[in-house]
């Protein structure tokens, strides 16, 4: 957002040409004007002018947005509709308060240093009772449906122990090594610690010593996305504090959504705050970071046989491609790996349909949106799809499992780490 551009100005800028109808994944399924940016902007204008209220219906329409940013990216008039919608959610929370479940989640659970891990720890011990293991898949199914949780949904295991509970001292490298911080985020900590481990090994192979404060917490994006700026600020402050004493030059964030929020979101939460600004400047993400670490000329490792190659396609996380304009770097990296055959899908930048809590509130809609993504992935006949957003990964794993496609879902760092082993041999 242009700093000087007020919300009213963003709303007024929309000339209602209707182009967003051709790019919005939610509109493609619902085909209702209230689903698309033009409609939502019109509603927000009416609220601003006092001709409409923050009603239940309005809340639904504001929440029925993935925040993928396709509208803003393609808007001929430069209307930042996704930002306007997020801001309207925050105004709504300010006016009407949070819904009870969200209040419990953001203020009482996510916002608590002890309660969130403790609850999940209990969960990790009890998950066998509620859930049954799904053969061949690293995930679980509910034994019965719960509100917001469909029985057919693939639910990732809760890790035991969590990533941040594992021997932190072991990560500290030798004296005199380059140092880098690691912000893991909830999904890696609680659900996919192996991606955290992969990141650590990869950094170690590049001779980095890792600063990994155990008291880091959720990045705050889920709260921000739901309009709860207060909870988002609390979490942001906690993360700033956790990394403060380590005085690091760079902090790597493997998850694209966390990365976007730490880099772009934090300065918006604390406008003019110098410490926040300098914290955000340190935030880096894997594709740009590891691309810079690559030797200018790749070692002549010899091209592996065709049958040893892994055929990979790449899904652009919206938070990386649209918000941060990072889409060439991951491709450049993947294409440079000798054991990778890179296959581009038809619309790699189309949203997977996860959209954070969107997926929980509108699971069926979210699945329909994902179906088009799965068609694209299937169309490439790739062995694996790689991406770097944990939200996208959870979504794609669920979809690929329910379609029984057999395509692997890999985080970019997992692919890079595997490549670094191959190179060493």
């Amino acid at each position, binding site marked *: 957002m242009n700093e000087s551009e007020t919300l009213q100005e963003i709303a007024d*800028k929309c000339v209602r040409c209707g*182009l967003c109808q051709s790019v919005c994944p939610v509109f493609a399924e619902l085909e209702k004007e209230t689903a698309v940016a033009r409609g939502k902007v*019109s509603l927000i204008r009416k609220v601003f002018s006092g001709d409409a209220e923050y009603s239940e219906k309005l809340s639904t329409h504001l929440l029925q947005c993935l925040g993928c940013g396709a509208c803003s990216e393609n808007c001929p008039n430069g209307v930042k509709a996704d930002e306007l919608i997020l801001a309207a959610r925050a105004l709504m929370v300010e006016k009407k308060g949070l819904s009870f479940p969200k209040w419990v989640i953001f203020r009482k659970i996510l916002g608590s240093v002890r309660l969130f891990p403790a609850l999940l720890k209990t969960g990790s011990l009890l998950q066998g009772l509620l859930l049954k293991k799904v053969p061949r898949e690293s995930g679980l199914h509910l034994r019965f449906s719960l509100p917001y949780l469909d029985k057919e949904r693939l639910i990732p295991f809760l890790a035991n122990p969590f990533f941040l509970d594992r021997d932190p001292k072991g990560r500290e490298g030798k004296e005199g090594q380059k140092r880098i911080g690691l912000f893991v985020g909830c999904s890696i900590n609680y659900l996919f610690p192996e991606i955290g481990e992969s990141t650590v090994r990869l950094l170690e192979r590049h001779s980095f010593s890792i600063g990994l404060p155990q008291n880091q917490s959720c990045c705050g994006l889920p709260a921000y996305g739901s309009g709860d700026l207060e909870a988002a600020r609390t979490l942001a402050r906690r993360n700033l504090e956790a990394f403060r004493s380590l005085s690091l030059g760079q902090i790597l964030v493997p998850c694209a959504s966390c990365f976007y929020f730490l880099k772009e979101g934090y300065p918006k939460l604390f406008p003019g705050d110098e410490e926040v600004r300098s914290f955000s400047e340190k935030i880096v993400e894997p594709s740009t970071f590891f691309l810079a670490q690559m030797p200018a000329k790749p070692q002549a490792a010899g091209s592996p046989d065709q049958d040893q190659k892994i055929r990979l396609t790449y899904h652009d996380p919206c938070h990386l491609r649209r918000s941060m304009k990072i889409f060439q770097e991951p491709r450049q990296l993947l294409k440079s790996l000798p054991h990778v055959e890179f296959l581009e899908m038809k619309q790699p930048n189309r949203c997977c349909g996860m959209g954070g809590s969107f997926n929980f509130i509108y699971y069926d809609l979210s699945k329909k949106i994902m179906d088009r993504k799965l068609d694209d992935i299937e169309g490439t006949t790739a062995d694996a799809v790689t991406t770097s957003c944990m939200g996208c990964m959870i979504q794609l794993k669920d979809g690929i499992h329910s379609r029984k496609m057999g395509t692997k879902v890999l985080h970019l760092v997992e692919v890079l780490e595997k490549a670094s082993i191959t190179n060493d041999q």
Partner: protein
Amino acid sequence: MIQQTATPHQRSHLDGKIIKQIKAICGEKHVLTSKEDLICYGYDATNLEGPLDLVVFPGTAPEISEILKLANRNLFPVVPRGLGTGFTGGSVPVQGGVVLVLTRLNRILEIDEKNLIAVVEPGVVTGDFQKKVEALGFYYPPDPASQLYCTLGGNVAECAGGPRAVKYGVTKDYVLGLEVVLPTGEIINTGVRTMKGVVGYDLTKLFVGSEGTLGIITKIILRIIPMPEARQTLMVIFRKVEDAAIAVSKIISAKVVPSTLEFMDNASIQCVEDYLHLGLPRDAGALLLIEVDGDREILPKYIQKIEKIASELNPYQIKVAENAAEAETLMKARKGLSPATYRLNPTKIAEDITVPRDQIATFITEARKIAGERNLKIINFGHAGDGNIHTSLMIDGKNEEEKKRAAEAIEEIFRLTIRLGGTLSGEHGVGLTKAPYIDFELGPVEIEVMKKIKNVLDPNHILNPGKIFKA
């Protein structure tokens, strides 16, 4: 004069009973009545808003027929709508009532390769249809700027054009026949499935461009043509706007008909240059973007002819694109123009007047004078090949005084257009925005004939009231 039954105070609000009946016809889930939903169906791309009581998404022609019969019994307005991308307010309700959205009727029913026709429903997105026929080696040329997010039904109702009109004509040149639900509920079929057909009056042409005031189109028989084998693009930048206009006339009289002949004046060039920094000369008078298509062998001949005509006019630059990527780069100037215009001012009053091709230069000089005298920012660009100029005033929509000056200027520009032998609208239609001016172009008898036609088909004026004719 016709009876104006369609005045707001004579209309009753849709009562619960009528809403129930509409739900019974189309199914509850295809009817919207919440305040939030109504807000989102009261506008189109003009950015104008109007009141409405209900939105319905019918699934079949018989359902539409039932709704229209109900409307006649209870005298409520029905406004047909596609994806709401019109430029004159054609789908904006003005007297409340029902907005009838045709997007559920979105099937391509038939592509008959042997007879070069296709049968579609009105809710099909134009660009989707084009992609489909192009995959089979065919071509449906009409290409309004909104082709990726407008419907064929809307294109037919407004008789949409586009850059390719210079060679390939506009929507009406491709419509062979229609299925139409009349305002009184009867379902009729017009036209033919053949290349020729002259039995009776040409009702098809009557409905094409009728702006949703005479009937609701539920099926369209379209002509498709073979896809041209190749295309090539060039850009010519002229020192004076007159030179560009002379070039247009000379190209046409040299019997080269480009598939696109787009024009941008100096203000447009400056505007897009500020925005995209393409390296266009800021003091250029105008530029032409020209595309030719046809058999691969013939294209160099066309290009040479155009280059020769242009070079005799001592232009700044002639750039011929050697491949598709280069063509795209050249087209950037034209495609980037629309967003760039808003850098001048936040509100655009975009007209689509059309003048005889040899009057383009006179029109632009005079129109700039009209705007200049009133201290208004004006840009002129558009489809020079067919004389269709998008003359746009860029104003601050919140400044009432400036709005008044702009309205005056538009009126003068319309008078100028008529004086030069042109028409007020090449492709957008009359709708709401041009309704106050139709008697600039049409005589009282012509208007009376049109109103009589309206009265015969829609005696109670329930269908899209308040459009085309002066209130």
